[in-house]
């Protein structure tokens, strides 16, 4: 499995299920960099997600965007939230466009307090079962009481 993980903690959590040189035919996990300070970084993060997702879709591999819950909810800087919410829309678009061919994309939201093994288990579950296509699956508690975008 191919991973492109912007955060060292997440990279560590997912090292046993894939890496940056992994075979994308086994799936793609993309986690954007955080604490973005300027627009160019947003465009580059989203473009890298697009290029890797296009590559994954070409071989009908499942795609998981691993995002920070506060960013999904809007409880972060506007640039981090723009990337996170943008990828929520990206997962919906991929799942919708590829629905008749069984293509798969989804979002897993993590709040930062999740044990690494639990994050890896959730990613593995999503990739292997292709459950909750085009949805946002939130781990932890950050999202409770809040509306998703």
């Amino acid at each position: 499995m191919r991973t492109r993980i912007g955060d060292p903690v997440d990279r560590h959590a997912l090292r046993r299920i894939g890496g940056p040189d992994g075979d994308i035919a086994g799936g793609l996990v993309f986690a954007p960099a955080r604490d973005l300070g300027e627009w160019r970084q947003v465009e580059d993060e989203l473009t890298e997600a697009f290029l890797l997702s296009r590559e994954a879709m070409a071989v009908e591999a499942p795609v998981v965007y691993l995002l920070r819950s506060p960013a999904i909810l809007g409880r972060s800087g506007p640039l981090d939230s723009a990337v996170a919410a943008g990828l929520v829309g990206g997962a919906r678009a991929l799942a919708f466009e590829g629905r008749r061919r069984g293509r798969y994309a989804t979002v897993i939201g993590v709040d930062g307090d999740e044990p690494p093994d639990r994050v890896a288990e959730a990613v593995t579950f999503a990739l292997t079962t292709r459950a909750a296509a085009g949805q946002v699956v939130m781990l932890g508690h950050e999202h409770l009481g809040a509306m998703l975008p």
Partner: protein
Amino acid sequence: MSLAVVTGAARGIGRAVAERLVTRHSLLLVDMSQAVHETAAQLGAVAVQADITQPEGIAAIVAAVDGASEPPAMLVNNAGITRDALIHKMEEAVFRAVVRVNLGGTYALTEALAGRIVDGGSVVNLSSRAQLGNVGQFNYAVSKTGVIGCTRALALALAPRLRVNAVAPGFVESDMTRAMPARVRERVVSAVPLARAGQPEDIADAVAWLGSEAAGYLTGQVLYVCGGRSFG
């Protein structure tokens, strides 16, 4: 009257928004198209022909705002483009272009003008129902959901001084949609519970309401104006 700034204002939804707001605001209309001058002349507004993806474009808008006789009370980020393609045929340049205009332009102009908008003022960003899923619109969906993320984060960052909300239009009559083949258009409209295409004025009414005191307790929200298509 206080000032309202509307982008993508030369025609379509942006022009309809300007026509709605002209009774309660003086207007500064922004568009890349030269047609913005004609629209502005018809509405007694000031025109700025500028590209919101370029620093000099943002600077020109800021200069026009600073030169106005009153500070802005409302910003409507409406400028946007589509460049549809299936994901496997979508080129990087096309992806970047859509994200840069729809999301980058919205962020850049809001960042530049937020400090100039009067207390109690409002920002309304144009998202789209398409962010819930459409074929051939990965770039558009990313940009328009990104607008929602930006809207929510800015709503928290700028509260309680300013309100920031979004409108998500569905299928709306435009030069582009009027050019669609009849059978495609009929298929799209048949999926709308209210059984018609939206008019630019439908969207303008929602934008005007969000910017008014009647919506004074709303911030960080997305108002879907799509004839029920967001769930039907």
